[in-house]
């Protein structure tokens, strides 16, 4: 079953689009839920168009929720609406209230995304670690490591609208900053870290950024169950993200029925 949903967000202050995919046969138990984040210039439809997601949902028996966050990179924008709070907290509350067949337990909720969505899913999973137990970040770099030329170009202006003009290693827009904060909470408040599955194609133009992020997580293996996967021949492309989605689904135990039966 594929539902295209239009609902109102109090945080973004407008109607928002979301796709929800459910298996045809619901079964008796609540469904585990995979939140899928789109890339830059993407929306709530592209995961459907470019992968066999609907087949995976039926074969592996889970719910998929695909939000559309426009060009916000899944954050509460520096100048702009609070897309981060919408996608990380408000939308799950709305979806879990609406769908009694989808589990709202932390252990049953996972986020995966690619490119901007790869950054986005790590950002959200680190910020809302109490809500998500695993994250699959594909072709994901920390925006803090991106080269920022504050030169008045459209690209730099967009960056400022999203994140401001500061060093993101020092604020909530930086993934290592968020990870460090979470580590503090783990040490002092017994917080739990999500399992981190991170992947990048060998031909990806931003491979270097993925390596920086990888190195951070490897250094902090004490706190994060971390796996890194690289496929040499592939780049920043759907073929890669389709493969990695399947690997991530296997990782969180959402196996294809042929395997389990």
């Amino acid at each position, binding site marked *: 079953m594929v539902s295209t*949903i239009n609902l109102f967000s109090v945080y973004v202050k407008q109607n928002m689009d979301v796709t929800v995919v459910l298996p045809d046969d619901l079964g008796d138990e609540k469904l585990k839920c995979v939140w899928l984040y789109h890339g830059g210039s993407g929306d709530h439809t592209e995961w459907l168009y470019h992968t066999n997601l609907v087949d995976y949902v039926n074969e592996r028996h889970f719910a998929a929720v695909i939000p559309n966050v426009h060009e916000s990179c899944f954050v509460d924008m520096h100048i702009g609406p609070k897309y981060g709070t919408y996608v990380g907290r408000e939308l799950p509350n709305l979806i879990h209230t*609406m769908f009694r067949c989808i589990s709202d337990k932390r252990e049953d909720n996972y986020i995966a995304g690619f490119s901007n969505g790869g950054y986005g899913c790590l950002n959200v999973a680190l910020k809302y670690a109490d809500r998500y137990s695993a994250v699959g970040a594909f072709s994901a770099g920390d925006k803090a490591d991106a080269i920022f030329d504050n030169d008045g170009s459209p690209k730099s202006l967009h960056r400022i609208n999203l994140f401001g003009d500061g060093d993101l290693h020092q604020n909530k827009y930086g993934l290592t900053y968020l990870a460090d904060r979470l580590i503090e909470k783990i040490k002092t408040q017994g917080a739990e870290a999500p399992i981190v599955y991170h992947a990048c194609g060998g031909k990806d133009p931003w491979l270097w950024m993925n390596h920086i992020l990888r190195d951070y997580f490897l250094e902090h293996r004490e706190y994060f169950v971390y796996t890194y996967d690289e496929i040499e021949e592939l780049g920043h492309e759907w073929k890669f993200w389709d493969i990695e989605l399947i690997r991530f689904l296997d990782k969180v135990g959402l196996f294809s029925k042929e395997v389990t039966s």
Partner: protein
Amino acid sequence: MAHLSINCRSKVLGMPVMLDVLMPQRKGNYKVLYLLHGAGGDHTTWLYKSRIADYMEKTDIAVIMPSGNNRFYVNNEHGKKYFTYITEELPKMCEEIFNISCDAKDRFIAGMSMGGYGAFYAALKCPGMYAGAFSYSGALDIGAMYERLSKKDMFAVFGTRQQLDEGDYDLKKLVNKQGANDVDKFTEFNIACGEEDALLPYNREFYDYMKCAGYNVTYEESPGGHDSEYWDKQVEKTVERIKLW
């Protein structure tokens, strides 16, 4: 308020179906109104031709709008099992998936024209299933409709005239001949028809028939014709009533 445009498989109909759902963004366990369209319409009709989304917006009522495919919401003689879809598969699926009430006292069904017939057919064939059934300009005398409409179309749905008469398609056949019992009276039937509507005599007649049989039934005639302006007003009234149910 959330609007869901749904594509899913119906095992009963053996094909994919479209479904439009209006869901409040409140606490859940909503009352449910199954809203049926008329001939020529589909899952979009009520959305395009009325302000239903506006009416239900600040309520705790979810509205479910299936497609009836011109098949009168019955199990067709030469076609698919639409009655089973509407009264068994659809509610079961919606109650499994959505945070809506599974209680009959929170379940309602309404429709205009062919949908009015469909709503009453469902409610009469399933006593105790709906707290309220609403017919707007309903095609309540199916025998008369059989004669008025295209022979080919009617044959596909109801078979021959003899098959229609021998079956339970005539709503009068579904009315309890021993008089309405407690389960029959659980449902409040509401018949509304426009004064300029050609179906007015059939609506008056069926109201009298149900009333004599002791059913819980109301009747309203008001200015209006067989058109979306009239149906829009009726569905607004229905939502107001369900709010207070």
